[in-house]
């Protein structure tokens, strides 16, 4: 970590109020502060599993809901059977939300959606240690436009 700093000029700050008149009398000094910039880079070329077998699926949710629909469960049955047959297989369960509502609430909602999927898989015999959960909230939409069609595509859990 390299640090550069810019000079910080500081501040003497005086206020006095005249005691014997209604006039407000003040003296003050402008405070200057310095700012440093940080740059963060991530490396995407990390090693992935060598397993030839993989499973991927996407399930969708209603607005502000994290319960699984019967259609989602059909898709998840496929995930369960693949994972039961390939016991080395581990997956990432990624929860997402549409961009309506607040970012932090959507982050929590995405996490709950991922958790619903994990709970289903666990209750169908998949060991929890094979599942990683992550939420991106509303930060990674499939479709960035602002309409019902885009929103319904964005309220999802991706299994990778």
């Amino acid at each position, binding site marked *: 970590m*390299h*640090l*550069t*700093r*810019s000079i*910080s*000029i500081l501040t003497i700050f005086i206020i006095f109020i005249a005691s014997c008149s*209604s*006039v*407000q*009398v*003040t*003296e*003050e*000094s*402008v*405070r*200057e*502060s*310095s*700012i*440093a*910039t*940080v*740059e*963060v*880079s*991530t*490396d*995407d070329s*990390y*090693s*992935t*599993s060598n397993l030839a077998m993989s499973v991927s699926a996407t399930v969708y949710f209603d607005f*502000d809901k994290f319960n699984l629909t019967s259609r989602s469960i059909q898709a998840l049955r496929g995930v369960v059977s693949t994972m039961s047959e390939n016991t080395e297989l581990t997956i*990432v369960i990624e929860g997402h939300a549409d*961009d*309506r*509502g*607040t*970012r*932090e*609430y959507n*982050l*929590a909602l995405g*996490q*709950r959606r991922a*958790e619903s999927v994990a709970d289903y898989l666990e209750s169908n015999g998949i060991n*929890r*240690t094979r599942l*990683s*959960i*992550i*939420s*991106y*909230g509303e*930060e990674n939409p499939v479709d*960035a*436009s*602002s309409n019902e069609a885009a929103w319904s595509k964005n309220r999802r859990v991706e299994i990778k």
Partner: protein
Amino acid sequence: MKLYSKFLLIILIVPIKVNAQTVIDITQGSEDPYRLAIIAKEGNQKQTQKVLSIVSQDLKRTGEFYIFDNKLLLSLPQTEEDIEYREWRLLNCDFILIADIQETVAGIQLSYEIFDVANKEKIRSSKVYGITDRFRQLGHYASDGVYETITGIPGIASTRIMYVTQTSDSKNKYQLFIADADGLNEQLLLRSSEPIISPVWSPDSSKVAYVSFETGVANVFIQEIATGKRFSVINKKCNDCRFNEQISSPAWSPDGKYLSLTLYQDGNAEIYIFNINKKLLTRMTNHYGIDTESKWSNNGRKLLFTSGRSGSPQLYEIDLRKLNKRPKRLTFEGNYNAKGSYLPDDSGIVFVHRATNKFQIAIKYFDDNFVIPLTESKMDESPSVAPNGNVIIYAITENNQDILAGVTLGGVKFRLPSASGQVREPAWSGFLN
């Protein structure tokens, strides 16, 4: 496949000055503004005009001031003795500001006096000491003094705002900026290829905390503004927490010693209080519904948060001195009330409110049992209250563009358009002076 195997490669710190990209644009002003004449004393008039033009812009930007065009004035008094109050009454002028700049070895010095036309008297006499060539800062300080003397409310021109931008440049997609309250003097704090959300200021405005996805999962960092020194608040390897290391939603306690945070370690968003020095976590909520977006009251006694426990997001409050009591629900109108914060005097809360299909910024005073919507767009988000309690900055979406907008409790509206990128997640600093 390993989830947390993205590596933090480089942390590089360079002071970068970015050209101002935002200009304030008043969309709706007060119907009965204070009428003020601003006069530069003869002598060092050119320099004085420079500073006074900043003062004038700051005051106009509040939407509460009408500033006279000096060509329309009948006289330009240099001292109190020169003022013919009757003449100023005829002009319907409420206040006169007379100012003068002196340059000394130590720097520049602005002297100003304010006269009340109705009461025919001087109401303020002040000196502001500044650094040579830093006219903008000097002007902001002076305008805050003028604003406070005339309106009775502290000015906020010398405070700062922080926000996140997103551009299509994949390497520097997300950037965290600080700027003056007028949107100028923009300075970069952090850039990342991964999302940055929920930035907040420390109570003394020397540090910021935010959520960064740089490791592939949401995590909370604290960063010193002056040095760029930063650290992840909780460095833990999660053995027993069902594979969920995500942390989000930081909020500083008013004494700066604690952060409230949202942790997801047992499969659901719950609020904790984290002692920053002792690195101790205390759990505050325990419910199967989502609990997040905590904010401290300014007296430090209460914690406001969003909870989904009723079936839709609503605001609740924990009394930190009565932890055995159940959280108290504060909002009942509308099916979405979230991201709340207290007004500086703790007399009420400001939050995102959804009635029908619109997300609006709304306010609710504790003395009232109704919600007052402050904005009218469709997708208003992320309100942050200025330290004087009089202005709220928030994020709007317009033609697929995210920009910042503001509204005062008096109904004045303005926006800060951005030249490039999406601008969002605004956070207002505390008073800096």
